[in-house]
């Protein structure tokens, strides 16, 4: 709540609501007499110096009446909201304490009522209770209730699953007590939040009822009633409608802005802010001549975000055709961002810089826009972790594949679709023609991932970047997808950059392994050496944490204590030093990535 008035909207909302409250309290005290003073010499006047907003049919000053009417408007809205909130919370809490069937009935009623406009309910009660504030307040209270009931229900359901509620249930605490002691206090805040918004809504609805002549009746008056009177004279003296209209509009805007800001503050509280001092990343290094054969050549790739957050720091990587390179690291090591940077998909406001970024022999940053699009669109295939999220749920599978061909290769729709079916068959999706006409949700998880891979095969991929492609799948499907990836690389001669946190999968699939830690490559080695020849303490710890590699299973699992520094707080020296058993004073300096053996490089002072 402390952060409220920082935004202009927050300030405006708070001020307006405060103004309304002050007006409601002080208005009648200050202008009460003026508002009731009848002046037969000045009836039905327009704007004048004495009466800025004119006078009514008894010569009373309209400005004073507007200022006085705030109290009744606000008070009635508050009563209606309280009636509605009380009824709604009870109604919403009932299903948790009632037997199943009765609970279903209550829920059903609430669901049906939520969609019912308040004004209709208010007119209904107005007929029964007769014209006047009472009918309107009751009706609007009734209209407010279902919203509260629905909210209470959803919130209570979300809390009901929490551990402490389960514990209370186990201890035999009665259901009603669980509700009042454990559930309601935990959902109070969103309910109070909703109260602000409901209050604004009730105020407007009441104003509407009074404006129709169905709410507050003379001699009482609220803003709506004043507007009713003013509206009758709008042709002659439009100014008389201005005061009450402005008051209603300002009240509506005030409550709405405040409600908005409160809601946003509440949702923001859940996510802690974290930013650290910026620090330049050193490292330049010799560039040398570009490698003409490499599919991908990256030198000194750095990704920075504002606030000195640098998740990828001077990464270099070369991939030859047909090679499967595994990029392994914990989450937060920068491996996925590396993939995004290569594909040109780093989200704003991230910034990518590199000494060299060549794909298929061309520097992507020097190519003209259109050519770059075509190159990345057809030569680079990307496979993401969650195939459901990677396929557009609204479009048919075949169409999504086909558009690569229609957009980049100028194929006709029919040809593109035929190719899509062919590619689906290629990744061994049964009945590809039928599947192509289905939506993604009609396919199984494994089939979806196959479809994504098939999408990459629509062009002539030279490089496949697979970012955790099997993590979301179950084990048997995982293996099939891995096999498929290997086959695809064999057949097409494309290279694959396979990104995973799972060193076992990497060891199984890849030819070469690149280990990332805190945004840097710490070791790069042929897969054959992974099991026993790793030189970096981090790689060794990773390997040791696996039971099914060639490790001695009689030893206890070697987990790695401590945690990886976040991208904002990477130290100047070796980032692994905190967790490293071999760390010495030397490690306060950054170890360079240097050749260790043939095809094996490592960044550690202790590796000799």
């Amino acid at each position, binding site marked *: 709540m402390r952060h409220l008035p920082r935004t202009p909207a927050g300030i405006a909302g708070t001020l307006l609501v405060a103004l309304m409250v002050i007006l409601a309290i002080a208005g009648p005290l200050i202008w009460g007499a003026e508002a009731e003073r009848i002046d037969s010499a000045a009836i039905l006047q327009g704007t004048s110096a004495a009466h800025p907003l004119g006078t009514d049919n008894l010569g009373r000053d309209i400005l004073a009446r507007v200022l006085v009417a705030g109290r009744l408007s606000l008070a009635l809205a508050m009563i209606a909201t309280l009636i509605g909130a009380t009824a709604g919370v009870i109604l919403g809490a009932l299903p948790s304490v009632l037997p199943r069937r009765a609970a279903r009935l209550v829920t059903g009623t609430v669901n*049906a009522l939520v969609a019912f*406009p308040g004004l*209709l309910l208010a007119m209904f009660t107005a007929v*029964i209770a007769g014209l006047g504030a009472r009918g309107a307040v009751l009706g609007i209270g009734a209209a407010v209730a279902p919203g509260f009931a629905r909210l209470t229900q959803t919130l209570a359901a979300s809390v009901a699953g929490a551990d402490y509620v389960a514990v209370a249930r186990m201890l035999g605490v009665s259901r009603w007590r669980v509700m009042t002691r454990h559930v309601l206090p935990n959902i109070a805040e969103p309910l109070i939040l909703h109260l602000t918004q409901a209050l604004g809504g009730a105020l407007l609805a009441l104003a509407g009822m009074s404006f129709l002549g169905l709410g507050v009746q003379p001699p009482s008056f609220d803003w709506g009633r004043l507007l009713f009177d003013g509206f009758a004279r709008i042709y002659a003296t439009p100014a008389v*409608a201005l005061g009450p209209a402005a008051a209603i*509009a300002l009240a509506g805007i005030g409550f*709405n802005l405040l409600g908005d800001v409160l809601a946003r503050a509440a949702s923001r509280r859940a996510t802690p802010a974290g930013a650290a001092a910026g620090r330049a990343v050193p490292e330049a290094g010799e560039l040398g001549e570009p490698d003409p054969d490499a599919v991908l050549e990256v030198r000194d790739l750095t990704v920075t975000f504002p606030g000195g957050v640098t998740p990828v720091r001077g990464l270099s990587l070369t991939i030859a055709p047909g090679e499967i390179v595994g990029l392994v690291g914990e989450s937060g090591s920068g491996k996925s961002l590396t993939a995004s940077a290569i594909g040109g998909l780093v989200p704003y406001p991230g910034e990518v810089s590199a000494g060299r970024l060549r794909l298929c022999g061309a520097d992507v940053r020097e190519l003209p826009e259109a050519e770059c699009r075509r190159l*990345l669109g057809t030569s680079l295939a*990307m496979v993401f972790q969650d195939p459901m999220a990677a396929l557009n749920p609204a479009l048919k599978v075949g169409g999504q594949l086909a558009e690569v061909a229609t*957009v980049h290769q100028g194929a006709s729709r029919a040809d593109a679709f035929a190719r899509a079916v062919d590619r689906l068959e290629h990744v061994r999706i049964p009945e590809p023609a039928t599947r192509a006409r289905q939506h993604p949700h009609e396919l199984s998880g494994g089939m979806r991932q196959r479809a994504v891979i098939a999408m990459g095969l629509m062009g002539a991929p030279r490089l496949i970047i697979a970012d955790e492609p099997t993590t979301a799948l179950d084990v048997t499907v995982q293996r099939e997808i891995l096999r498929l990836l290997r086959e695809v690389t064999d057949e097409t001669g494309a290279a694959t950059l396979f990104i995973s946190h799972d060193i076992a999968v990497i060891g199984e699939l890849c030819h070469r392994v690149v280990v990332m830690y805190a945004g840097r490559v710490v070791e790069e080695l042929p897969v054959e050496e992974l099991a026993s020849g790793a030189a970096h303490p981090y790689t060794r710890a990773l390997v040791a944490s696996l039971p099914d590699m060639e490790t001695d299973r009689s030893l206890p699992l070697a987990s790695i204590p401590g945690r990886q520094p976040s991208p904002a707080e990477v130290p100047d020296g070796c980032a692994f030093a905190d967790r490293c058993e071999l760390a010495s004073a030397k490690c306060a300096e950054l170890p360079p990535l240097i050749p260790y053996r043939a095809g094996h490089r490592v960044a550690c002072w202790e590796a000799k």
Partner: protein
Amino acid sequence: MAESLRPSAAGPSAEGGRAGRALGRALGRVRSGFVLRRAVRFVVSLGVLLVASFAMMHLIPGDPVRASLGPAAPAELVTARRAALGLDEPILSQLLSYVSNVFRGDFGTSFLSGEPVREIIASRLPNTLGLALLATVVALLVAVPLGMWAAIRTENGRNRGTEVTFTSATGAAIAVPEFLYSIALVTVFAIGLRWFPPAGKAGPVSYVLPILSLAISPTAMIARICRVETLRELGMDYVRLARAKRLPAARLYFRHVLPNTLTATLTVGGMLLAALIAGSVLVEYVFAWPGLGLRVVESITQKDYPVAQGVILVYGAIVLVVNLLVDLLLGVLDPTSKLKET
């Protein structure tokens, strides 16, 4: 992978398959019980509405006929009216005859003018519906592009200025009720500038101001939802993949993003339509629009109970029908919708 083992469901021939598939899908949904559950809910709600509408007349404290005719009316007239309305019969048979009358289209006659309520409804309902539908269409046509544009401009926290302007402007627009818009529009464009007629229904120009008054708040609300939805979709992997495919921007936004934002947008649009029908009461009142809303206000003020009862019943039924249609439409549009579980 179990699905792939299932025997081929007789592959539909390329042409003529579309209708067959749509039918199959609809049937599938009937089987899944979604349509049935919605139908049951609709019928139950309608029943509740009928009982409530019937009860309304009986919940009026004292004698509605006496209240309507005033204390000066002769006792014979009151008795005759009561008998004509069947108010002295047992309550249950009254309810039954009320319901059967309603289904035969007999809503009673006005206490004041003696007109059959059915005729009042028949002559005025089209005016109300026309206004509400046009306003919804206008709101959707303006709001969806506006929301998408705002989302694309403010993606990943770019263009803070646009975001602040957009949220405050829509916030303010939502907060101001439609009757204030109509009063403002009447004052400026009808009374001040004389561009449009201030009241009544006479030709296409007379629609402009009422539709504008009704559409402003929903437009702001839908635009907001549409922006939030679009922003969410833009962060999804399929958009990253589509971007990785280097699709042209128009294709990316209209083919890939838009269909996924439509569900939420239409849900809100549908809910707003129900609210809009009620809001039209106020707008009709300001513009003296010959719709149901104006008439119901008059009838409540004048204690013309049969008219009030009939018109409120019609309003309630419209809301129920709109909600049902929105639900069904969503069920067809969004096959994965969570809605179906409720």
